[in-house]
């Protein structure tokens, strides 16, 4: 009784989150004591347009409310609530005894509530009352992620620069002092020029004060040199550090992302983001940002001393300045789009490489070299076109900015000549000269800065491409309150597991309990969902519906890394990393002793053939282990799985790529591996599943049969049929 009240309470609570305008119409029609058991939103109407309909299941009726139209069906008249989905759109059908009563569409986001509604309906029909809430509500809470700040990518680099804030501050101080020194050098022009002019005019007889000015000039220049050097060195070091940190962080983040992310990504593009984009960023940070900060400080100092000297003239000098800034700002946007296209084209080109180099055997086997050359050329051409577009933009803006800069100095000449011509008091030839130098410095620096618009935009695009990786939250999140585990016992339970790949539903309502140490054979046609099931057990993906439990606890409650330590996997085509055989065997446990490595290799029947190699366990194997045969590679991967001593073992068609003699050897190796572990083995050849305690057959994502080999043969269903087919094949081609 108590539990029932809880359930109702829970639903009234979530029920109150429904928009009142929708809710009130249904509530008005509820009879006394009729409570809401489940509800869902259908967000797409019968004509497949976006429109919200509220569907409600109570103890007596099903209601639908669209706007203020409410329809209802008595529970007795309904036979079934059926959900199906296709192309990302789900449909809930209300089936009566002799016809369909109604149907509603919904987007996947509403999927879970549709399933809950279906389940509740089944319960009602079966006369069950729910004592527990639905599994969906028990999903372990995932670690929270901050939503990425919505600011410009370049500014977000600050979080990486922050640890070096002290050095950056020092660099700024140095830069500032250097700027003042540079201005002081220029300022000496005024007294010097005036001194020379007076000497020429005969008003003074000695040039000795010049020594004083010249000394100041020289010292200031030297100070400027030393400071700029120190500042440059510091900032260059900082920027190298910042980009290296960024690269590390991005790569570490990438490693933690789920397989689903990699499934939808092109390897080459990812590589280009981490390598060339971060390199571009580093160049910007070390070269441009040093200049940029130094120059912008200098601009202020120069402008300040211009105003100090002569406000009127300073205003005239800075006349073209707003135009230049506007032009820089305007070109910036245009450039950014261009650079984006350029980076994307570059990523695409690397993708072509990353695609064809590993696939070179296929390319050659089908004699498609010419086509691949063409494909690369096209990608390369796109890079050229994209870059050309930027270049032509830039070549247009750049001379224009240069022109405006020279105009600035020109304006000073014109105004200065006019001032001297009108014999303005206090305005000497020296003042004009100093002004000219300062304004030339000002516009010279501005010109340098405008050149940086280019570099900064390029860097902004690169930063954005890197942050796109960093902003991606893993689909296999770490739990907020992890359950710590060292060694699992190895029981596995699937509870109403569902999984969708893209918009295809590959696993549907899959339930099964596997005891610790039991070996389960997994049989089914290609595409039946076998590999998906295994990916779910490995937590390469997370279930979309239901839950997988290991030792009675949802696997999403364990730390991903700790959980995976308990899972060993042997794949059909094992991947060997570049390195020695010993390194490859100890990949999952780098701290393993030599003895352990050898024992694992012996158990995997790999020891003898390894000793045949010239360098024994120190033999190098290539990127894809090309120097070893398929069977040899397989035995190494079995040794690798043995070494981590997993409680749960997965064999994904571990022997299907091998000839029968090799297969026999591998079978022996596998027997050692399987002993005492919970094992799920996928196999095409049923003969390899002789030792399995139970064999399950799945078809189109559903479990259709389960039992021992003999039981299944007696059942004479899908398994028996497969068995017969294979025996005939064996007779025909003599396997």
């Amino acid at each position, binding site marked *: 009784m108590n539990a029932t009240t809880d359930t109702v309470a829970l639903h009234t609570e979530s029920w109150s989150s429904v928009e009142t305008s929708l809710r009130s119409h249904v509530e008005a029609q509820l009879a006394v004591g009729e409570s809401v058991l489940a509800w869902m939103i259908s967000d*797409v109407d019968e004509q*497949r*347009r*976006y*429109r919200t309909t509220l569907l409600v299941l109570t103890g007596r009726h099903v209601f639908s409310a669209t706007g203020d139209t409410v329809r209802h069906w008595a529970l007795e008249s309904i036979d079934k609530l059926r959900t199906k989905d*296709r*192309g*990302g*759109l789900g449909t809930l*059908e209300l*089936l009566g005894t*002799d*016809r*369909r009563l109604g*149907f509603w*569409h919904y*987007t*996947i*986001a509403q999927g879970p509530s549709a399933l809950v509604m279906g389940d509740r309906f089944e319960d009602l029909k079966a006369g069950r009352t729910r004592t527990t809430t639905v599994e969906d509500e028990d999903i372990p809470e995932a670690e929270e992620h901050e939503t*990425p700040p*919505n600011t410009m990518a370049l500014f977000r680099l600050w979080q990486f620069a922050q640890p070096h804030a002290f050095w950056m501050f020092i660099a700024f101080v140095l830069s500032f002092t250097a700027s003042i020194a540079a201005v002081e050098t220029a300022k000496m022009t005024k007294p010097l020029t005036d001194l020379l002019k007076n000497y020429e005019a005969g008003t003074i007889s000695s040039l000795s004060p010049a020594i004083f000015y010249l000394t100041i000039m020289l010292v200031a220049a030297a100070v400027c040199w030393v400071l700029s050097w120190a500042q440059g060195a510091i900032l260059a070091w900082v920027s190298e550090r910042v980009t290296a940190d960024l690269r590390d962080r991005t790569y570490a983040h990438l490693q933690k992302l789920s397989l689903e992310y990699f499934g*939808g*990504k*092109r390897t080459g*593009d990812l590589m280009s983001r981490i390598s060339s984009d971060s390199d571009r960023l580093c160049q910007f940070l070390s070269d441009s940002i040093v200049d940029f900060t130094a120059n912008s400080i200098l601009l202020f100092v120069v402008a300040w001393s211009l105003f100090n000297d002569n406000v009127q003239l300073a205003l005239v000098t800075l006349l073209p300045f707003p135009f230049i800034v506007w032009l820089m700002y305007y070109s910036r946007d245009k450039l950014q*789009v261009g650079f*984006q296209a350029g980076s*994307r084209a570059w990523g695409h080109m690397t993708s072509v490489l990353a695609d064809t180099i590993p696939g070179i055997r296929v390319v050659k086997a089908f004699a498609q070299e010419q086509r691949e050359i063409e494909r690369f050329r096209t990608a390369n051409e796109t890079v050229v076109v994209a870059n050309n577009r930027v270049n032509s933009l830039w070549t247009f803006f750049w001379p224009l900015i240069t022109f405006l800069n020279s105009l600035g100095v020109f304006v000073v000449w014109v105004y200065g000549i006019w001032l001297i011509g009108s014999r303005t008091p206090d305005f000497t030839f020296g003042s004009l000269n100093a002004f000219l130098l300062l304004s030339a410095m000002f516009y010279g620096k501005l010109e340098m800065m405008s050149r940086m618009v280019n570099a900064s935009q390029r860097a902004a695009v690169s930063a*954005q491409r890197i942050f*796109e990786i960093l*902003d*991606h939250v893993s689909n296999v999140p770490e739990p907020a309150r992890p359950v710590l585990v060292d060694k699992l016992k190895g029981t596995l339970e699937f509870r109403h597991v569902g999984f*969708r790949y*893209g*918009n*295809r539903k590959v696993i549907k309502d899959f339930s099964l309990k596997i005891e610790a140490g039991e070996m389960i054979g997994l049989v089914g046609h290609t595409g039946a969902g076998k590999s998906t099931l295994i990916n779910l057990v490995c937590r390469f993906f997370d279930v979309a519906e239901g839950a997988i439990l290991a030792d009675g606890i949802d696997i999403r409650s364990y730390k991903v890394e700790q959980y995976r330590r308990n899972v060993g996997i042997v794949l059909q085509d094992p991947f060997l990393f570049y390195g020695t055989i010993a390194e490859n065997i100890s990949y999952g446990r780098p701290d393993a002793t030599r003895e352990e490595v050898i024992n694992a290799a012996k158990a995997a029947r790999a020891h003898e053939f390894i000793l045949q190699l010239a360098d024994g366990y120190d033999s190098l194997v290539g990127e894809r282990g090309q120097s070893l045969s398929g069977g040899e590679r397989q035995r190494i991967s079995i040794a690798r799985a043995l070494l981590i001593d997993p409680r749960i073992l997965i064999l994904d068609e571990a022997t299907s790529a091998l000839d029968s003699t090799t297969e026999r050897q591998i079978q022996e190796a596998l027997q050692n591996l399987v002993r005492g572990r919970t094992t799920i083995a996928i196999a095409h050849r049923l003969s390899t599943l002789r030792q399995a305690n139970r064999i399950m057959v799945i078809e*189109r994502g559903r479990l259709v049969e389960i039992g021992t080999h003999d039981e299944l043969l007696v059942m004479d269903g899908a398994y028996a049929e497969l068995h017969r087919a294979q025996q005939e094949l064996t007779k025909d081609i003599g396997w």
Partner: protein
Amino acid sequence: MVDANFADLSFRKNEWGQLVLVMLDGVEYPGIDPVRCFPLTDPEHVIALLDQEGKELINLPSLDVLKPESREFIQRELAERDFVPVIRKIITTSAPYPPCIWNVETDRGKTSFHLESEDDIRSLGKTGIVIADSNGIRYKVVDISALDASSRRIVRQLV
């Protein structure tokens, strides 16, 4: 596969809302699912008729081989099964680059979706794009240059 003269095929809808294929000899196949084989590159040709189990019964090279009533019927059914909203205008985006949320106006009304990555956008012919959202629902832009200026700008930054 069922052998039949394409022109003899007729269809009806039963009380369960299913599409029923009716053969010349009166044999009926309920729960038919018409599927375009090349929904993006050549939607009008090669259309498969699947039975309830997803097995192909008939493969039509094009709808023109059917008699006019049947053709209209299947056309209507296909239109009903398609759910690829055509984006008319991008109202807002939560950020200029993915991952971000797009608020869009489509031929099926307003909606919003989560765009995870640039890679979820693929080009469709010379002028169009197809966008897959985080739930696998696809959206189409038939001609980028026909969009309004601000929407076009958002798209051009990504393609």
